[in-house]
């Protein structure tokens, strides 16, 4: 028996509900029994009447409570089940098909649950099962027990491409009849209808489609200075807004949201478009667009070179030459580059600081030494210097006898003239580009000829540096690596004076291949052909990028095809690179069709939402128990058997359950309280457990010494994580340096510098006093210290002078050993004008506390005491060693005294003078 979504296992028990009104009457007639008390004062009560007589009968709310409790118990025992399962299980083998493409990723866990539920059901009824992921290549389907599939199902992940050529699976289907469930992603796929018809021929086919629309982001394109983004959706339902994020590294290399836009889908529209206007600096950093909140590779579009606009500095001849515009050495470069790059012009010394990606020198022969140095430095950082030859270069002495640093080859004097009026030869055509050349694969138009060029000296590495040559083998373009950058020389002019190459489309393609210019739109087959593209990053079906690792490259032609038709098993979506150029292969291409699946007539299409049968018996019975418990309390209260204290119960409960408004003490608060209870010595946590333990024990030992010998009574020391903890509580930080500790973040440096500026002291201990100074090079700890200290606001340092206040702030000391003796200890340098006063034993030094003390004596080990108050590490040998430990303790006492009292002891030198001035 069932009522809507509710069913009962024992519905006849519900008849008990009829008894409720009778129960009501019965209960109403029997008020709670009175309590009888012996009380002498009754004589005074005689004649007093109750103000309220209605309580003679049971109060209505108590009745209701009891009736509800009984009703809940009756209904509970009737065994209600919410959402009962009415379906009758089938028989025979069961085939479960998953699309397993990118569109499944958005609700993959739900699909897994559904598939697991189907598996479980099949397992219970002993049916054989096969699970098929349609993005795999077709392979024969074998029915196995459901248990065998359960584990494999959990490991199944969607693939970042669409299922393709589904009709190939028809041949893979097993013999005999079977039922099928198809967990479809809702999109139309090739061969889908064929496969569905084939499955229907074998048995019942139930298609399960998830609700909600499939959303896809198309690749971004660059139009008229704006980034144009398009999104598509499957269902053309009502108007919706969809946010899209542009992500990329920020200047410090951390991936961040760089821009955000909103797609607005009109009602009935399946496509939407927005324009993002970003400053070039930001735009060049964007490496991925993603639809907000969509967990699918289809909602992610990686961006490649097509959005990048390089900064190119064009430098022509310095002297203004009156002449035709067309004869200007940079005119064709302007034409070729201005649509696809940001051009800088000006003198070389002006543009280098702007750090352009490419500097083009068109027929510039001589450079001054500062210009050369600046260019070399820029090249070392990865710049591309593109030079064109010309009359001036040919006439100059540059790179003639010795190779110029900024030229890839040595040049022969004069160059050569071909096919001119004064020459014998014909103008030369270009030879096909050799394999290994960045231009390999480009078509060479037949009409491109070179009539004049500069010639390279036949040096041993000329061949390896030649990346384009004329038909007779003379180099046309040569290249040399300089640092992380490269120098490329076109042996012809950048204008049409020496050749008609700059007039041809080949010139533009060559510039693009050199990553001088970037492609304005989606790459075409010929742009990629002939090169091997290595995946740099691959994207999974959820849109998460991972480094591809060592993967074999793919042919450019195949990549170009995949960009048109979408990725597949051999070509996962991701970012592919060839030398300097990068191409993104996205799941969704500019013209990928997002269409709804069209199932053959008679297919049962079901939703994916799972409604679990839920037995309500326990719930209702516990409700009845709770109500009865409440009834007990209420009845006690009515009859006055509830004590006074118990009457305050509701109040107590209310107080307990009122949300706590006050701020609870967080661990940080507790730590702060701990740290401010007294003087707390702190050490920086290095991440090395042993070093941290020794530092803790060392400060404990020093604290005990201070407690015994001085009026400083420190609390137990604390370890400080400079990234997270507040440093303001501590006057003193002991910082042991380990070679592998992490460099503090920017925020931590800010904290540390504030700590130093506001009077804190850091004692850096490189703990290498045993080996430091044995060789010239510094130890790993020393290098690490330099690295750490580079971000700190540390004043000039000097070794502790003999009259520094540290030598006398408590004990008179002249050396400062720790576990190792004899090292140098560095403190803030004295002011240059510090002088020894008349009659004073000390110079008036350091009117202030040195913010850092740097040494390598491993003081913590010398100070360290274990929990039994025993020293943890031996110092030196025998009595001399113990004496050294004592001096180490004295140094620690002096340091803490210096931290806490500043230059007070330094001022003590004035005491004799003050006494003298007072007379007597």
């Amino acid at each position, binding site marked *: 028996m069932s009522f809507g979504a509710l069913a009962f296992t024992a519905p006849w028990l519900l008849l008990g509900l009829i008894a409720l009104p009778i129960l009501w009457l019965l209960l109403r007639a029997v008020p709670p029994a009175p*309590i009888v008390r012996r*009380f002498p004062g009754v004589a005074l*009560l005689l004649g007093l009447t109750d103000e309220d007589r209605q309580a003679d009968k049971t109060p209505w709310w108590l009745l209701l409570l009891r009736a509800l409790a009984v009703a809940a118990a009756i209904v509970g025992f009737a065994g209600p089940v919410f959402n009962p399962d009415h379906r009758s299980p089938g028989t025979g083998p069961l085939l479960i098909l998953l699309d397993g493409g990118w569109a499944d990723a958005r609700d993959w866990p739900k699909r897994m649950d559904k598939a697991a539920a189907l598996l479980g059901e099949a397992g219970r009824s002993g049916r054989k099962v096969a699970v098929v992921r349609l993005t795999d290549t077709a392979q024969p389907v074998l029915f196995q027990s459901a248990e065998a599939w359960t584990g494999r199902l959990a490991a199944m992940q969607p693939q970042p491409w669409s299922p393709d050529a589904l009709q190939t699976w028809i041949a893979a289907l097993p013999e005999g009849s079977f039922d099928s469930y198809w967990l479809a992603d809702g999109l139309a796929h090739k061969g889908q209808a064929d496969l569905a018809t084939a499955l229907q021929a074998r048995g019942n086919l139930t298609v399960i489609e998830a609700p909600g629309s499939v959303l896809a982001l198309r690749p971004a394109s660059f139009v008229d200075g704006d980034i144009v983004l398009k999104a598509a959706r499957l269902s053309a339902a009502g108007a919706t807004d969809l946010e899209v994020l542009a992500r990329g590294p920020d200047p410090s290399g951390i991936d961040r949201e760089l821009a955000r836009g909103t797609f607005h889908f009109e009602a009935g529209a399946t496509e939407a478009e927005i324009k993002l206007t970003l400053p070039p600096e930001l735009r060049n950093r964007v490496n991925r667009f993603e639809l907000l909140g969509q967990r699918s590779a289809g909602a992610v579009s990686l961006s490649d070179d097509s959005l990048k606009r390089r900064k190119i500095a064009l430098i022509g001849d310095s002297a203004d030459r009156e002449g035709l515009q067309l004869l200007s050495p940079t005119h064709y470069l302007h034409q070729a580059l201005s649509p696809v790059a940001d051009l800088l012009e000006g003198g070389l010394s002006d543009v280098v600081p702007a750090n352009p990606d490419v500097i083009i020198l068109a027929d510039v022969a001589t450079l001054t030494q500062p210009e050369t140095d600046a260019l070399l430095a820029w090249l070392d950082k990865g710049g591309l210097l593109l030079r064109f030859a010309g009359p001036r270069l040919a006439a100059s002495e540059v790179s003639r006898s010795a190779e110029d640093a900024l030229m890839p080859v040595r040049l022969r004097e004069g160059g050569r003239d071909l096919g001119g009026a004064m020459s014998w030869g014909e103008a030369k055509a270009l030879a096909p580009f050799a394999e290994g050349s960045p231009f390999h694969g480009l078509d060479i138009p037949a009409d491109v000829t070179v009539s004049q060029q500069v010639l390279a000296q036949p040096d041993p590495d000329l061949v390896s540096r030649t990346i384009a040559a004329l038909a007779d083998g003379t180099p046309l373009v040569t290249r040399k690596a300089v640092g992380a950058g490269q120098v490329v020389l076109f042996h012809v002019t950048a204008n049409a004076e020496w050749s008609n190459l700059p007039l041809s489309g080949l010139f533009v393609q060559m510039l693009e291949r050199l990553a001088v210019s970037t492609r304005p739109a989606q790459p075409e087959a010929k742009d990629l052909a002939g090169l091997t593209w290595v995946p740099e990053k691959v994207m999974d079906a959820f849109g998460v990028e991972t480094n591809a690792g060592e993967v074999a490259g793919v042919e450019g032609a195949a990549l170009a095809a995949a960009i048109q038709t979408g990725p597949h098993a051999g070509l996962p979506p991701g970012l592919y690179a060839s030398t300097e150029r990068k191409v993104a292969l996205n799941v969704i291409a500019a013209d990928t069709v997002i269409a709804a699946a069209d199932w053959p007539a008679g297919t049962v299409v079901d939703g994916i939402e799972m409604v679990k049968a839920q037995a309500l018996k326990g719930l209702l019975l516990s409700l009845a128990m709770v109500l009865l418990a409440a009834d007990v309390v209420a009845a006690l209260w*009515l009859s*006055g058997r509830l004590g*006074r204290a118990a009457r305050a119960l509701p109040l107590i409960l209310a107080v307990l359950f009122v949300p706590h408004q006050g701020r609870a003490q967080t661990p940080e608060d507790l730590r702060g309280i701990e740290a401010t209870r007294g003087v707390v010595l702190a050490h920086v946590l290095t991440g090395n457990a042993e070093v941290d333990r020794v530092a803790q024990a060392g400060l404990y030992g020093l604290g005990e010494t201070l407690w015994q010998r001085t009026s400083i009574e420190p609390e137990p020391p604390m370890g400080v994580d400079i990234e997270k903890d507040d440093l303001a509580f501590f006057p003193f930080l002991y910082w042991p340096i380990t070679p592998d500790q992490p460099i503090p973040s920017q925020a931590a440096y800010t904290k540390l510098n504030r700590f130093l500026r506001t009077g804190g002291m850091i004692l850096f201990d490189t703990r290498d006093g045993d080996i430091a100074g044995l060789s010239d090079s510094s130890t790993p700890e020393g290098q690490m210290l330099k690295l750490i200290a580079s971000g700190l606001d540390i004043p000039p340092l000097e070794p502790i002078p003999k009259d520094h206040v540290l030598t006398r702030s408590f004990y008179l000391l002249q050396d400062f050993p720790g576990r190792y003796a004899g090292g140098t200890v560095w403190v803030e340098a004295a002011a240059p004008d510090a002088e020894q006063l008349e009659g004073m034993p000390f110079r008036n030094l350091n009117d202030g506390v040195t913010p850092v003390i740097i040494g390598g004596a491993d003081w913590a080990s010398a100070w360290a005491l274990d929990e039994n108050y025993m020293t943890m590490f031996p110092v030196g040998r025998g009595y001399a060693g113990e004496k050294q430990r004592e001096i180490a303790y004295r140094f620690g006492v002096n340091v803490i005294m210096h931290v806490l009292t500043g230059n007070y002891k330094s001022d003590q030198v004035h005491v004799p003078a003050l006494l003298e001035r007072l007379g007597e």
Partner: protein
Amino acid sequence: MSLSPDLRARAETLGQSLPALLAEAEYLAATLMLGEHGRRRAGQGDEFWQYRPAQNGDAARSIDWRRSARSDAHFIREREWQAAQSVTLWVDGARSMGFSGAAERAPKLDRARLLALALTVLLLRGGERVGLAGLPPRPGRAQLLVLAQALQAEDSADYGAVTAEGMVGHGRAVFLSDFLGKLEPVETTLAAAAERGVRGVLLQVLDPAEEEFPFDGRTIFESMSGSLRHETQSAGDLRGRYLQRLAERKDRLAELAGAVGWHYHCHHTGQAAQSALLWAYQALEGGR
């Protein structure tokens, strides 16, 4: 008689502890040490009161020659008049006195008997004659045993009615009861006492529960024998009116006592017995 030795021992203890308690009250301490009550006027007694010039009619043997030798006149040495007093105790033994509001508290009757016996100890030690209603007042420690035995008597009535029986003219009387029953016997007794020149003390002994009325909910209140019943749906609502009636009762008692020169005090079993004893003793002294 099972309770009696214990009761007597406790009473003795309480009586003996009183001097220490009264160390500050110098007069009372002195009196206790003397054991006799001075009348603050000349008369028969052992204590010196005053010298006065001899007059005609004074016996020659009454002249204090030592004092007279220091002057020309003759002086008579007068002694303070000291006389033993008769004190009649009445302790309400009715059922209502058997009430105790909490398990750890003794019934009111216990406290009343204890106070009565302690008072007897003090009075007997002071040389007074102490008696009960129906037991003539006699001095001497032997009387203590007799009284302790007589105090064991219980009354089967719900509320005790005080009587003037056994009161000695111009004596003292101490009534210990909860005074929760009818007030007519108290009024008639006090009137009779006033006629006979008897003065004394009304000591009302109440349980704290009677003072606070800590009851709630549907309750049937019964007197100790069950003869009186009162049912209420919500005892808590009656609290205010009950307390008002109790206060009226106390006022009435104080008024009755004041009218005939008696003293009234309300004592709770939750308090220490010493304070009530001290008050009763002082009231008996001061009433003179």
